[in-house]
């Protein structure tokens, strides 16, 4: 199976970061994963990434509840990036929130592919991988 090297995780919970990294490794996602602790860090990081001529990650796992800049604010700013650069990028929201208003709100962002409720499982990653490769 083809490896997905360009994956980005944005979450302030380091236990979750540990967990998803470990699951991705087991699912053969590869170890080259960009990690940011909040939306602002991620935006800065991704901008730098793009300025050095690298492609933006094809998968972004995004938490909603983060200090400084939360997931929604990140999405707002992400959408302002040149659309062609985002052609190959999809966002998966990974959150503990079961608030129906959040589920409605993701529909405003076409870049968001799905909403995954924590805890994330090996099975979730497998599905994502299949979707991406297919």
């Amino acid at each position, binding site marked *: 199976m083809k490896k997905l090297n360009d994956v980005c995780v944005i979450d302030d919970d380091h*236990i*979750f970061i540990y967990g998803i990294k470990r699951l991705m490794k087991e699912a053969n996602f590869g170890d080259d994963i960009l990690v940011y602790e909040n939306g602002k860090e991620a935006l800065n990081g991704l901008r730098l990434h793009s300025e050095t001529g690298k492609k933006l990650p094809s998968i972004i796992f995004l938490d909603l509840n983060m*200090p*400084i800049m939360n997931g929604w604010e990140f999405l707002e700013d992400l959408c302002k990036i040149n659309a062609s650069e985002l052609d190959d990028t999809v966002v998966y929201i990974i959150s503990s929130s079961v608030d129906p208003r959040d589920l409605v709100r993701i529909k405003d962002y076409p870049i968001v592919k799905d909403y995954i409720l924590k*805890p994330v499982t090996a099975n979730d990653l497998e599905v994502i991988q299949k979707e991406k490769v297919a």
Partner: protein
Amino acid sequence: MESLVISSFIKDYPASVVIVNSEMQIIDHSKLWLKELQNTNQSSIGLPLYELINYTSEEFSKCCEECLQGGEITKVIQKLNNPGVNTQWLEWTISPWKEYPGKNNGLIIVKNDITETKRKEELLLKAKSIARIGGWEVDLVANTVHWTQVTKEIHEVPMDYIPNLEEGINFYKEGADRNKITNLVSDAIKDGVPWDTELRIITGKGKELWVRAKGEVEIINNKVVRLYGTFQDIDEKKRVELKYEEVSDRLLIATKVASIGIWDYNIVENTLVWDDNMYALYALKKEDFSGVVEAWESTVHPEDIKPTQEILELAIKGEIEFNTEFRVVWPNGEVRYIKAIAHVIRDSKGEAIKMIGANWDFSKDKMAEKKLKNLLDITSEQNNSLMNFAHIVSHNLRSHSSNLSMLTGFFVEEKDNDEKDRLTKMLCEASESLEETVQHLTEVVQVKTDAIDKMRPVNLYKSIKGVEKNLVVLLKEKNTICKIDVGKNLQINAIPAYIDSILLNLFTNSLKYSSPERSLAIKISAESIGQYTIVTFSDNGLGIDLKRHGDKIFGMYKTFHKHEDAKGIGLFITKNQIESMNGKIEVDSQVDKGTEFQLFFEAIND
């Protein structure tokens, strides 16, 4: 010669006169006679009268015959129904003439057209009959009573009925009515006082009827000799009037009890009339104002005058119904809510001529409505915050529990001991976080359930000093300068534990988010304005970008700084605590300049 003079005199006589001999042949006549009867200038002398005029009645010929036979002067009224022309009334005065005493030689006949008089008389009779006005007369000398036809009709007695004074009075309804007429009649006889009254009679057929009885007196030699007057059937009018009186009495009682003011606006004459209730509604004295418009404008809330006048104009134009409300400011400053409805009355051309309206005070309803709306707002706000709270709780518990389940999953499968140690550490961390979250939730729930009756006077200065003392080490560490500008005796109405908690939170926030570039300065001041004592708590720390975070600053689990102790719970609890003490909190902040909180507490006014 004499005959000629007489003849010439008759010719020019200014009436229609004809002289006939015993054979009823015309021997002379006035010019007017000829003109009226024949309409020719030819003399009709010598012609028989009956040949010349063919419309005389039998009564006329009979009278002429009698007169010629030695009768006296007679008058005959004749009604002529000329086809195509209005009815004509003629009055013939037939008088004999004689050359020698004894035998009558002929007749002098004067014709008089009395159509006009007769018509007036007829009209009067008709009018009297239609108006049901009868006449009556009491001759106190001859002791006779006369009633006209209409009077009899009103009494429902036969036309041949002959009344007397006592019987006449007995037609009046027994009791107040009969007593009254008895008094009036006896006063009239005794003192010559006329009367005009409205009373009830019981007719010959037993019907109760309202009549208007007018009486006049004729006095001769200081003695009343005759009573006469009119008698009118006013039953229908009177009953309508009484009914109206009853209704308007009822309405008056109703409007008075319900405090409904009625106004009446004559659009044509531009006059406005208020009933007494209106003045009461506006708490005004009628005598203080020259006009109603002035009174209205002096009392209506200035903001409501123009809109109400606009509605009035639109209502007069017929574009809308006049159904509105406005505020009035009573002379004592109290604001009341007035509900106003009105109906526009129009003439046959649709022009508005009059407007009748009602006003009533619905302040109570308005207050209830306001209170209800307020309650609804509070309820929906609470509902909303409860919902948010539930989602926050669910989110936070879930994030820890999902970490725990994920970690245990790894732990079970993990073979590597170093990795196992790492997992154990993280498991401990996750369970600590869970415990902390539960602790926060407990605090929040406590705020919500703490009773308001725990509020009592709290010395603000002492509270601030107490908290400052507890934080003395931390404050010193940052070289903090605290400027406390609060009266030593200032008291606020609050829950003491909350005040400590709120102050502690604000102090620690200032400490946590102080600028690394300058030493921390905290300023606390207080002032009492109306029902509130406003405490201003400001620092020169990092500040918060309010444009970006303004709506979330008091939210639960919102943090805006990357700080190891940022939990996003403090201000949420602070806000809840202040609100549960009937206060409020406001914030102003500039990034890298500092933050200023304004805390509103219930003031204690001496």
